[in-house]
C-alpha cells in the first residue's frame, strides 16, 4: 500500500450463505480523493462499505483502511474513519446534543473538546437550535445531517457515506452534496456509494462501477466517458409521444435505444448514417420530429455500455429491490 493510499482493497469477498454479495473486489482510494462506488441497488455497495467499516467480516480477501488492516487492527482503522449509513443509526430517544457527545466519548475525543466540537458541528449543519430535541422527531434530512455531524466529531481522515442523498428532497440533497464537497476540499478523503449516476459524475474524482458484486471498471468519470466516445448518441423527440423503443431499435445502424422522459436516445457508430433514417422513420409513421441532437456520452451512457444495464435499473430504489428479492424467495 502506498503512503498516498487511504483505502486499499484486495480480493474482498463476502458470502451471505450461498449468496455471493461481493466478488473479489480490488481497488485503491488515494488520500484526499473523492471516490465513488457506483452501482444499482443490490450490487454489493453497502456490503463493501460494511466490510470496510467493521460492521461485517469479509469471507476472504483483505483491506487496509487509514494504514491499518481491518482484519488485524480493526480498532486502529476505525479511529481514523467516520461512517454515515444510508439509514440513520442515531438514538431516536436521545437529543441531538447527547447523540454527538456519546459518539465523541466512543471516539476518545478529549472531554474539554467534546462540547466545543458538538456546538461547532450543530451550527455548521444548521441544527444548533434543535440541539435539545429528541432525534426521533427529526425529519429524514435533519437526521442525515446529524448523522454526518456525528461521523465528523472525531475529525476523521476518511469519511464513508452510504447513499447519503437517497430519499431526501432536492434541497436537502443539494445541501448534503455541498457539505461533502467542502469536506473533501478541506482534505477529508470521501468514499461514497451511490446509485445516482449524475451524483457520482458531479462529485467524484474517480468511480468504481460495481454490478452483481463485481468491480467492473475503476476510472475518472471523464475517462469512462471517453471509452465510449466512438459511439454516437442521437437524442430525438417525436410528437405525438409514443412508446417507440422496439421500432427504433430495429432501425439500421442503431445498436441500442433508451427512453429519457419524452425523448429517445439512440446509440450508433455513426450519427450521420442514422439521422436521415430517423427523418424517414418519422415520415413513415406520421410522427413530427420535435428535436434532434447529437450528444457527448454521459457517465450514464458509459455505465450502460460497461454494465449492459439499462438506466432504469439504477432508478430502482432499494425497497423495490428488497420486495422483488423476497417475492422471488417466497
Amino acid at each position, binding site marked *: 500500500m502506498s503512503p498516498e493510499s487511504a483505502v486499499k482493497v484486495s480480493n474482498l469477498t463476502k458470502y451471505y450463505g450461498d449468496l455471493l454479495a461481493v466478488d473479489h473486489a480490488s481497488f485503491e482510494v488515494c488520500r484526499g480523493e473523492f471516490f465513488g462506488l457506483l452501482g444499482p441497488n443490490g450490487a454489493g455497495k453497502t456490503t463493501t462499505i460494511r466490510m470496510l467499516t467493521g460492521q*461485517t467480516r469479509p469471507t476472504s480477501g483483505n483491506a487496509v483502511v487509514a494504514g491499518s488492516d481491518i482484519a488485524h487492527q480493526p480498532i486502529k482503522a476505525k479511529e481514523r474513519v467516520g461512517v454515515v449509513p444510508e439509514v440513520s443509526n442515531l438514538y431516536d430517544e436521545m437529543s441531538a446534543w447527547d447523540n454527538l457527545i456519546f459518539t465523541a466519548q466512543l471516539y476518545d475525543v478529549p472531554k474539554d473538546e467534546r462540547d466545543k466540537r458538538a456546538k461547532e458541528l450543530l451550527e455548521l449543519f444548521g441544527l444548533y437550535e434543535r440541539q435539545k430535541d429528541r432525534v426521533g422527531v427529526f425529519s429524514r434530512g435533519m437526521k442525515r445531517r446529524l448523522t454526518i455531524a456525528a461521523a465528523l466529531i472525531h475529525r476523521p481522515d476518511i469519511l464513508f457515506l452510504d447513499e447519503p442523498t437517497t430519499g431526501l428532497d432536492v434541497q436537502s440533497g443539494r445541501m448534503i452534496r455541498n457539505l461533502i464537497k467542502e469536506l473533501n476540499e478541506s482534505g477529508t478523503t470521501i468514499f461514497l456509494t451511490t446509485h445516482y449516476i449524475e451524483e457520482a459524475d458531479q462529485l467524484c474524482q474517480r468511480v468504481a462501477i460495481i454490478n452483481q458484486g463485481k468491480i467492473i471498471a475503476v476510472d475518472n468519470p471523464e475517462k469512462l466517458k471517453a471509452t465510449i466516445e466512438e459511439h454516437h448518441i442521437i437524442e430525438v423527440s417525436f410528437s405525438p409521444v409514443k412508446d417507440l423503443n422496439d421500432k427504433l431499435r430495429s432501425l439500421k445502424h442503431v445498436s441500442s435505444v433508451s427512453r429519457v422522459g419524452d425523448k429517445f436516445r439512440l446509440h450508433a457508430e455513426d450519427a450521420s448514417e442514422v439521422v436521415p433514417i430517423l427523418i424517414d422513420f418519422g415520415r413513415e409513421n406520421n410522427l413530427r420530429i420535435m428535436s434532434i441532437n447529437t450528444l457527448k456520452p454521459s457517465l450514464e451512457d458509459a455505465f450502460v455500455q460497461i454494465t449492459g444495464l439499462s438506466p432504469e435499473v439504477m432508478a430502482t430504489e432499494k425497497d423495490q429491490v428488497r420486495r422483488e428479492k423476497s417475492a422471488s424467495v417466497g
Partner: protein
Amino acid sequence: MSKSIIKAVHIAKKDAKIYFFKWPNITFGLSLPAIIYLAFSVGKPTEISSTVSGLVAMAALFGAGAIQSVALPLERATGTFDRLLTAPVSLTTIVIGKALGGLFFGIVLSIAYSLIVIPFSGTTLTNPFLFTFGVVLSAYAFSALGVCISAPFRDIPEAMPPATLIRVAMVFLSGVLIPVATLPSFLQTIAHLLPLTYAVDMLQQAMTGQIAAQLLLLDALALVAFSFFFSVIAVLILRRTLH
C-alpha cells in the same frame, strides 16, 4: 485497558438513559419477581430470611436481565448497534458496557425490593456490606446472562420468550421458592449449575449473619465465573453474527 472500561461505562450510561423506563423493563423487571412470589409462596411455611434473599435475588435476576432483553435486540433491529460496531470499540467492551447497563438496573431494583421487603417482613439485615456485595456480584452475572441470551436475536419479540423461560426455570430450581435440598438429586445437580442458586445462598448468609466462609467463597467465585463465562459466550455469539 482503562480507555476500554471508560467506553464501557459510557455505553452503560447511554443504555441507562434510553432503556431504564422502557415498558418491558417495568413489566418484566419490576413486577415479575413480586408476581412469581405471590403466586407460588404466599401461605407456604418458609424461613423469612430465605423469602427476603429469594425475592431480592429474583429482583436482581429480572432487573439486570430485563434491560438487555430489550436493548440489544432493539438496537440490532433499528441499526443503532452498528454505531457501536463502527466505533473504535471492541466487542468485549460492548458486552461489558451492556452488562454494566443491566447491572445498574439490577442494583436499583434489588435495593428497591430490599427497602420494601425487609421492614415489612419484620426481619433485620445482619450484614449489609455482604448483602450489597452479593447484590452487585449477582446482578452483574445476571446481566451478562441477559446479554448472552439476547445476543443472537434481532428483535424484542424473538428475544423475550427464551429470556423469560430461562429466568423462570432458574427461579424454580435455584432455591428461591423451593429449598434446593428438597429437590430430587438430579435437579439439585442442575441447581448447582445455575448462578441464581449461589446468589440466593450468598444473600441468605448476609441476611442471617450465619456465615460459612467456604460456602461464601464458593458463592462469590461461582458468580464471578458465571459473569466471565456469559460475557465470553456473548462476545462469541456477537462475533458470529458479524460473519
